[in-house]
């Protein structure tokens, strides 16, 4: 029989979590540590990765404005995508939550469906839509809104649009979860106390789904800051973000230590921002939610 007796638990907890720990250690921890070690290796153009250890990779990334611009661009991209996901995803979820059945399930499937399709396929789809001879530009010109194509592919605007489309389902899912937990009577209570529907939404509903918006934002931010496929395909080789820059160092210039350094710095920045946000949220919502 199961007991809460600590002494008798023995090896069971370790054995039970063993497979997961093995997977976690083997596939995540080890490569991460190897990448970290790699980032401290010296590199020479003629001999490749050297056995010597150095801090020069970090110095280079931190001081070189070229990398600074890439990091700034990535941060801007992540913030823009997160903001757009909030603006689009939150109202979308609220509308979804108020829909009647069969339609609710149908629309939810439409919203979450793109997650079932490969990011690459979806991004190529955006390329067809946004290209200079794409559907959007052809339509705009046919309707005489513009006389020449608006450049969207290989621009930040294009990347932001495509990445928002890729990531908005995560915001929807996160807000959806908090909306489901919301006591439907709370809204009625607000109305019965004389609040107009708008005021009730702003003062009663919105504050309660804020944790969902926040966790959705954290997910979206982390994913867009480290996004690779969409920026690579829509942004192209010139419009680099951190993930594509690291990739280019690894594959293009074969400067593995520098690529590793960029990857490690991205990880640190991401973790710092995400942890900071959730710490802030925890303190803010501590005595409100269970």
């Amino acid at each position: 029989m199961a007991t809460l007796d600590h002494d008798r638990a023995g090896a069971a907890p370790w054995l039970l979590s063993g497979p997961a720990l093995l997977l976690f250690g083997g596939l995540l921890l080890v490569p991460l540590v190897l990448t970290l070690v790699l980032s401290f290796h010296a590199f020479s153009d003629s001999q490749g990765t050297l056995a010597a250890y150095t801090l020069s990779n970090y110095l280079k990334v931190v001081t070189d404005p070229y990398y600074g611009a890439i990091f700034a661009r990535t941060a801007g991209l992540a913030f823009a995508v997160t903001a757009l996901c909030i603006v689009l995803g939150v109202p979308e979820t609220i509308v979804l939550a108020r829909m009647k059945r069969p339609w609710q399930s149908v629309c939810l499937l439409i919203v979450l469906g793109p997650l079932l399709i490969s990011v690459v396929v979806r991004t190529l789809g955006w390329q067809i839509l946004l290209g200079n001879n794409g559907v959007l530009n052809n339509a705009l010109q046919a309707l005489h809104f513009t006389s020449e194509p608006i450049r969207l592919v290989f621009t930040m605007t294009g990347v932001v649009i495509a990445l928002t489309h890729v990531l908005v389902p995560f915001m929807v899912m996160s807000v959806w979860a908090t909306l489901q937990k919301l006591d439907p009577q709370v809204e009625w209570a607000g109305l019965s106390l004389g609040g107009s529907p708008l005021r009730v939404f702003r003062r009663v509903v919105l504050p309660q789904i804020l944790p969902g918006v926040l966790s959705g934002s954290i997910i979206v931010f982390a994913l867009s800051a480290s996004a690779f496929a969409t920026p690579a395909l829509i942004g192209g080789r010139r419009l680099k973000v951190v993930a594509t820059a690291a990739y280019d160092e690894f594959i293009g210039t074969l400067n593995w230590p520098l690529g590793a350094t960029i990857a490690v710095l991205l990880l640190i920045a991401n973790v710092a921002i995400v942890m900071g946000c959730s710490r802030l949220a925890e303190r803010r919502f501590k005595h409100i939610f269970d």
Partner: protein
Amino acid sequence: MSFLTLKGISKRYGDFTAIEQIDLEVERGEFLSLLGPSGCGKTTTLQMVAGFITPSTGTIMLDGRDITHERPEKRGMGVVFQSYALFPHMTVEGNVGFGLEMRNMKRAARAERVAEVLELVRLSGLGGRYPKELSGGQRQRVAIARALAMRPELLLLDEPMSNLDAKLREEMHIELRAIQKRLGITTILVTHDQVEAMTMSDRIAVMHRGTIAQLSTPFEAYERPKTAFASTFLGKTNLLSGAVVRRNGRCAEVDVAGTTLKVPHEGRPAQGDVNVYIRPEKVRLAGVDARASGCITTRVFIGNQWLLQVDTGIGRLSVAQPNFGAPPPEEGEHVGLAWSDDDLRMLEKEKPDGHA
């Protein structure tokens, strides 16, 4: 004219009829309970009064004003919800003051009113807490305070006690009734708990399948149920099936399994098959004056009472005997039972498609 009038109210959802032609009048200052099992339409009725759902037919008048289609936020009613529906992100003060804030009351006046109401529900000093930090009973008091803070003319209570434990519930019955009387606030309570309805109400509307089965004072409803449903839902009762043999001036003679019972017909045209009812506490153990006799099949002691089941010639009778000190005869023993004819009730058997 009554303070609140429901006239011909129905509510349909597609083919399903939740409420069927309800007429109800509530006087100013009255405490009225809508009592019934789940699914009887009592909560739907309350929600239509509050304005959360719109009736399919009929009109609702409040103080002479037609409010059938008025928005809930314009009705100015205080509502206490079953889940309390407190705002978890606001303190107790924020919750209680919310209605006042919506009415743009000045901060100072608001604080004064909030303190006043919190004192009324005995929550002074807890204003700074969040709902999560309160016990179930305290949360319920906050919900009541929040509804009362706006000084509504009509208070609607939707099963407010169902999340409290039995002892606390009894205390709250008395306390809430006292507050209601002190403020003289017209109140409608929705409940499935007959004790709750009886303790607090001036009148009870017993609801069944979207209609009002009986509307009367608690005493009337218990003593003179007008429908089979009301007689079985309110308290326990013994049901005996019989047929009217003769109708006299005051009584009808009813044949129940070969025994003739004299049942007051109260002016009704009693004939044919009827159900005869008698409350367990109106049956007593008797010696020589026994009207029926039988064998005790079960005997249960619940403190203030002994509950007996006796198999008699006219059917199995439940008997509730007050605890006088000495225990009644044991299971298996033979006892005589007696009652007063005035305590028998009779209702015509309803049609199979009726509410029997």
